């Protein structure tokens, strides 16, 4: 893990009245040809320090650099070159130059009394120095180490592994991770994929089991986490240095809503070799009603409508319910609910009673009915009118398993519903300690969209705020990514104990949130190469630049090239494919014969029942649920009835 090396002196601390050394900052010079740069970690040894000494040792990170010569004014350079820049290059002697660096103090040993940095020799930090400088020694050693490799600190040809503290990344001391950076260059998704792999391999055993729930919100980003990606030798070396086995995730469960036809999956992971792993995500009335607020405009949810929705949830759903007009209902689906609504409207009309039904005004009932019926239309494929649901395995989450919910092609309303319900269910189960794992990492990309700093209050934003502020006590950890950190809700990013920054946009860096960074650090952030990040972590008193290897999984865009998505199958073939996946013995023709001339809704309902029940003999069960075929009955031809009075020829 940590390699110990003898450091080499690279510079000397200098202090003047104008640039003094302080307890938090110091300046040092190096040779002009030096390999250190912004972000390098250095060690200063004061008098008496060293292996035997008890002097002060200070660790710092380079935050700024200056170069200047003994030139009094630029004009003198012009004079010396007689105004000809070409002559300036021909000067027989190179001017004396200096490479002066500013470093921010990471740690002082001893920590008390806190004193200005001694004017001593400067060394490049070794592995052990990096661990000490970043206070990693506190959690990498001891009976129960909690280090999670996050990347390699790289400076001057030297690499040292850097670890995050699991107690501060995944709770309970602090939690959550936020990653910012411009699209395409900040490698946010790759960083999260790598870090999840690292967590799965290094999550301390004493902290229990952990899983991840990842929302795939764009393209094929997270669709191939179980497939190996291309790594080069440098990546493999970095993995080795970090003590991580470069391999794709062993257990990945994919969930995707269906398309509007109810049988084809709405995901880019539809290649025949892969689609078998994808579970349809289908929710019915019960799953949706608790989150109706997500789907309805805020204007719709007045107190009356809210009360009526609560009434439906508490008193009607999944219960034998008497409508007051002699009808009995057991509402389980949107279709059942619509039946209840029709019975209420008919009952009120026929009995001529007032416009009130059980204290609810008919206008409120009509409004709620309209909005709810609209949900199954807008979220068709995710929300089923009358079929059983197929949900994430609440209560049966497995250790070191990634659950990917692909909502990339679902409209915004559906995405909101998926986020809200999935996270709420996670929270419920984690509170009850019956999820199956002790901690869950929830990865949400595009935080600028889901938790913006301004704009209307949405259910999803409230939910993300809730995770940010209270999740760490439950083991519910938010890993979130966005382009513009400054435009995300302050409490969401503020509660992230660990923050990663990839390549940043210059305009973003000009916002007040980045004022604590030196101009040089900002420039480095604005030009950060792919695969490098700046990390802030509670144990690190200053931001640290890191390099991480490419994730060992197939990148989304490579995945769709290697496993091109299949075109949508005809209804019959899609049903066959789903049944065959459940029971390999089933022959396609058997299914096609069974569903020939059946109503698609009946087929979908039967298919959903098979998916939910997972019977031994899937075909038999499917046949039973589908029911016996009823032969169409031809209506008897009606005989013509002659008119009672023949039409007179009299025109009047």
């Amino acid at each position, binding site marked *: 893990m940590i390699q110990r090396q003898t450091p080499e002196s690279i510079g000397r601390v200098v202090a003047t009245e104008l640039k003094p050394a302080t307890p938090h900052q110091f300046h040092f010079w190096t040779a002009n040809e030096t390999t250190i740069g912004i972000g390098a970690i250095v060690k200063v040894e004061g008098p008496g320090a060293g292996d035997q000494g008890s002097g002060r040792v200070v660790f710092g990170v380079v935050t700024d650099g200056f170069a200047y010569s003994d030139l009094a*004014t630029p004009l003198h*350079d012009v*004079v010396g070159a007689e105004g000809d820049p070409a002559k300036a290059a021909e000067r027989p*002697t190179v001017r004396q130059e200096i490479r002066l660096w500013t470093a921010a103090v990471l740690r002082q040993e001893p920590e008390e009394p806190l004193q200005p940095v001694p004017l001593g020799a400067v060394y490049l930090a070794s592995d052990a120095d990096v661990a000490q400088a970043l206070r990693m020694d506190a959690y990498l050693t001891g009976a129960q180490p909690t280090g999670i490799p996050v990347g390699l600190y790289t400076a001057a040809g030297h690499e040292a592994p850097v670890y995050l503290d699991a107690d501060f990344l995944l709770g309970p001391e602090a939690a959550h991770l936020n990653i910012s950076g411009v699209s395409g260059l900040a490698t946010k998704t790759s960083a999260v994929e790598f870090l999840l792999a690292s967590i799965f391999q290094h999550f301390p055993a004493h902290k229990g089991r952990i899983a991840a729930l990842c929302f795939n919100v764009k393209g094929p980003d997270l669709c191939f986490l179980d497939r190996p990606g291309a790594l080069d030798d440098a990546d493999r070396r970095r993995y080795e240095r970090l003590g991580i086995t470069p391999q794709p995730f062993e257990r990945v469960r994919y969930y995707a809503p269906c398309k509007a036809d109810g049988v084809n999956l709405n995901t880019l992971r539809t290649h025949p070799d892969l689609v078998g792993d994808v579970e349809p995500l289908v929710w019915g009335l019960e799953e949706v009603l608790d989150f109706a607020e997500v789907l309805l405009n805020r204007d719709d949810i007045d107190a009356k409508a809210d009360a009526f929705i609560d009434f439906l949830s508490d008193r009607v759903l999944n219960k034998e319910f008497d409508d007051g007009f002699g009808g009995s209902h057991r509402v389980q689906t949107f279709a059942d609910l619509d039946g209840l609504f029709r019975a209420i409207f008919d009952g009120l009309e026929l009995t001529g009673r007032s416009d009130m039904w059980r204290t609810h005004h008919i206008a409120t009932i009509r409004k709620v009915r309209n909005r709810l019926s609209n949900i199954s239309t807008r979220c068709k494929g995710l929300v089923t009118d009358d079929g059983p649901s197929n949900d994430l395995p609440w209560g049966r989450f497995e250790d070191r398993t990634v659950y990917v919910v692909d909502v990339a092609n679902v409209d915004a309303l559906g995405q909101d519903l998926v986020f809200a319900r999935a996270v709420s269910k996670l929270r419920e189960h984690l509170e009850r300690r019956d999820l199956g794992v002790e901690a869950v990492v929830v990865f949400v990309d595009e935080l600028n969209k889901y938790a913006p700093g301004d704009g209307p209050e949405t259910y999803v934003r409230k939910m993300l705020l809730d995770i940010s502020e209270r999740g760490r006590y439950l083991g519910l950890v938010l890993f979130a990514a966005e382009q513009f950190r400054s435009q995300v809700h302050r409490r969401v990013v503020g509660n992230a104990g660990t923050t990663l920054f990839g390549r940043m946009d210059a305009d973003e860096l000009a916002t007040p949130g980045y004022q604590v960074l030196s101009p040089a650090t900002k420039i480095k952030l604005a030009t950060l190469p792919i695969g490098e990040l700046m990390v802030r972590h509670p144990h690190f008193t200053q931001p640290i630049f890191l390099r991480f290897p490419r994730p060992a999984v197939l990148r989304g865009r490579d995945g769709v090239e290697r496993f091109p998505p299949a075109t949508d199958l005809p209804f019959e073939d899609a049903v066959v494919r789903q049944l065959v996946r459940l029971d390999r013995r089933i022959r396609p023709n058997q299914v096609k014969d069974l569903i020939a001339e059946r109503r698609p809704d009946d087929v979908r309902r039967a298919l959903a029942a098979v998916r939910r029940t997972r019977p031994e003999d899937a075909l038999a069960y499917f046949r039973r649920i589908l029911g016996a075929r009823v032969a169409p009955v031809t209506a008897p031809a009606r005989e013509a009835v002659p008119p009672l009075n023949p039409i007179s020829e009299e025109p009047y």
Partner: protein
Amino acid sequence: MARGWVDAIVAAGAVPVSYVPEASIGRQADAAEATVAELVEDAELRTHRVDAAAPAPAAVSFLDGIQQWRVVGQSGVVPLVRAYVAAAVRRRGGDRRLRTVAERSLEFAITHVEALAAPVRRALEDSGVTVVNLAATDLGQPSRTLRAAHVQVDRAREQLERQLGERCVTDLRDGEWLIVDGLLSESELLARHPRTLGVIKSHGAQFFSGADLERALTVPAGHRTSVFAPQSHAHQPIYSWYLRLWPWEGNDLLYGLLRIEARAHRETVAAAAGASGWLVRERAPVSTPDERWDRLLYAIHDVETYLRARAPRDFLSPTASRLPRAAS
């Protein structure tokens, strides 16, 4: 050691003082000295355009020295002077950067030992510091004594420079040159070496008069005078010529004017144009903010900067305010 003997003599009864003579910062200007010169190039003193395209040597070493001194104690009217002299040779190679190849420094005390109070004298002798003893005739008014001390400091510095230059010149490799800041003619070894040049910035010595003097002191920028041989019994024989680095018009006659000393040999005459060519190029980069930048070669300035950076820090600025102390 540096402060040790000062503390010792103060403890022994010398009155601590803090006086930095102005001359400690630099050298005194050469006293005006009239001498004669014999032309060894041309029948009369002429000016020649330097060979601007002459190739510079692949490697050149530069020699310079510094001196610093201050009065640190008084035993009666007898001053105790603390002096520091240093010299260094910095070599410039193919990368055009200067690196130190030789360096020496010396710290010593100057006083008239016999005139010191007995405890002070004992303390000084016990401290182990090198003492340069002034003659009894140098004692008297402070100005007289300090002038004598200044001469001793000058002498020590010149000796150090000469020793270092002679050591360096024997180590010069083929094609490598040594540029000395000051007179070449004070060392026989240096004065006879074919690839050594002395660069003189102060022009107290007058070699010409009349039209020749005018021609010498108004030589245009990028030009040199004819080579001449100063006639002096006090110095080694050398050849010399004036060389103008920057136009003097608008400034003064001596602005940008150097006098070059080289080996007294006919090859020197032939080489003067070429050597002057690359010496003129040495005017860049300019050695500002030094006030003598118009004739101070940057490389020499660099040696001086190097030496000052390594000199003891407590010579130039008074260690305490010179305001009268408040009554205690």
